[in-house]
């Protein structure tokens, strides 16, 4: 029983470390702030939730296991909220989109000269690749 629990804890730590690594690689490699946010929020949430689950398995439901479950719930509530706030503020201060991407629900964005916006996005991409 103890061996099974330890094996489960080690497996959950491995899964969590894998997802955190994937999120960091996405943060470093993706070309745009929106893509980077997509890369960090989801895999990082999954990785930290897996490590929280390892804490729940290790400590059991009597001790520090319940705060681990509360932490998973809290992460799944707050990380998408924070990512949404950052993406909205990035769109408001004028960070350009890639390609033909438009902000949902705004007709003036979708009709206002898409080729111009694509040129700006290409310039942004070229600049970030130069760095």
């Amino acid at each position: 029983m103890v061996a099974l629990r330890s094996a489960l804890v080690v497996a959950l730590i491995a899964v969590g470390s894998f997802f955190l690594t994937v999120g960091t690689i996405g943060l470093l490699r993706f070309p745009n702030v929106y893509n980077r946010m997509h890369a960090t929020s989801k895999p990082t949430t999954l990785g930290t939730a897996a490590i929280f689950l390892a804490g729940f398995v290790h400590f059991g439901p009597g001790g520090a296991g319940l705060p681990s479950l509360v932490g998973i719930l809290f992460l799944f509530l707050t990380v998408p909220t924070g990512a949404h706030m950052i993406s909205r503020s990035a769109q408001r201060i004028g960070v350009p989109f890639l390609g033909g991407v438009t902000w949902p629900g705004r007709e003036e964005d979708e009709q206002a000269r898409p080729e111009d916006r694509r040129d700006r996005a290409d310039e942004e991409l070229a600049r970030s690749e130069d760095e």
Partner: protein
Amino acid sequence: MAAEADLVTTAADAGLVLVAALCILCSYRVIRGPTVPDRVVGLDAIATNVVAIAVLFALKTGRGLFVTVSLVLAIIGFLSTVVVAKFVTEGDIIERRE
């Protein structure tokens, strides 16, 4: 019994080293990020990594108190992200209305 406890401690140690290295890699995006939201995203990723570090430290030492510490760190990270996002937006609105 002792062997399995050593196994968990070793796995938590390896995880701690890996996640600390990931924090250093995220700081590259914080320093070199072309725009301010890039830096905020990098700091948010570092905050989530630090939450994972606290849980791994609780697993390594066997003290359940550090799980509560990780909860507090998660709350502080969420608050700082929302506040910086609001600050960036409000500052730009003030500049546009001038």
